[in-house]
C-alpha cells in the first residue's frame, strides 16, 4: 500500500471500528456468560453488533486498499442493523429488559453506533470517486 493510501480519514474509522469491536465484544461476552437470563435477545444482538464491527473494520481496510465491494455491502448491513435494532428497542420494549449496543440507536455510546456507518458510507463514496478519477 502506498503512503497516500495508508494515510487518510479511514484511519480514524479503523480506530473506531476496532474500539467498538472490543467494547461490544467484551460487553456481550460478559453479559452472555454472567447474566444470560436477564435479556438474552439484547445480549445476542450485542454480540451480533461486535461481529458486524469486526467485519466493518475488515471492509474498510480492504476498501482503503482499493477493493470497495465488501465495504459497500457491509456498511449498509451495519446501518440497517442499527436502525432496525434501535427501532425495535423503542417499539418492543419487552424484548429489551437490558440495553444492547444498538438500543435507542446507540444512545449508550453517544449515538456513535448510528453515526459510524453513515461516516463510513460517506468516506466510501468519496474514496470510490477519487479512485475513479485516478483511473
Amino acid at each position, binding site marked *: 500500500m502506498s*503512503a497516500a493510501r495508508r*494515510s*487518510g*480519514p479511514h*484511519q*480514524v474509522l*479503523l*480506530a473506531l471500528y476496532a474500539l467498538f469491536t472490543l*467494547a461490544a465484544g467484551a460487553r456481550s461476552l*460478559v453479559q452472555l456468560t454472567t447474566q444470560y437470563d436477564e435479556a438474552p435477545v439484547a445480549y445476542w444482538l450485542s454480540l451480533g453488533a461486535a461481529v458486524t464491527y469486526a467485519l466493518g473494520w475488515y471492509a474498510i481496510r480492504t476498501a482503503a486498499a482499493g477493493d470497495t465491494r465488501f465495504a459497500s455491502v457491509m456498511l449498509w448491513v451495519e446501518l440497517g442493523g442499527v436502525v432496525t435494532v434501535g427501532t425495535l428497542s423503542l417499539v418492543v420494549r419487552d424484548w429489551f429488559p437490558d440495553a444492547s449496543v444498538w438500543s435507542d440507536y446507540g444512545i449508550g455510546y453517544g449515538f456513535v453506533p448510528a453515526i459510524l456507518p453513515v461516516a463510513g458510507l460517506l468516506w466510501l463514496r468519496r474514496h470510490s470517486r477519487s479512485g475513479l478519477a485516478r483511473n
Partner: protein
Amino acid sequence: MPSVSTQITWIVVGYAALVLVLAVVVAVRGAERPGWLDQMAWMLEVLLVVRALAGLGPLLGEDRPDSTSTYVGYLFASVCVLPIAMRSVQGDRAPWSSAVVAVAAVAVGVVAVRLQMTA
C-alpha cells in the same frame, strides 16, 4: 475527601482531554504529527498504568466490585487501547494519524470513567 483512585481517575480524564484537544488542533491544521504529541500520549499511558495499579486494590480487598469481570475488562482495556493506537500509526506522521491519537484519548477517558463507576 475522594479516594486516591478517584483522584487519579480525574487526573487521567483531564490529561486525556488535553491530549484530545491538542491532537484535534494538530489534525485540523493539517500538520504532521509532532513528536511532543507522541510523548504526551505515552505520558497518558503512564497515568493509565498508575490508575490500573491503584485499581487492583478493590480486587484484592474484601469490598469487591459488583461485576468483577466487567471491572477487569475495563482495567485491561484502559492500559491496552493507547499502545495499540500508537502502534497503528507507527511510522506514519500524516495529519490523520493525530486524529487516531484523538480517538484513543477519548476512548481511554471514557474507559477511566467507566472503571471508576464499576469499582
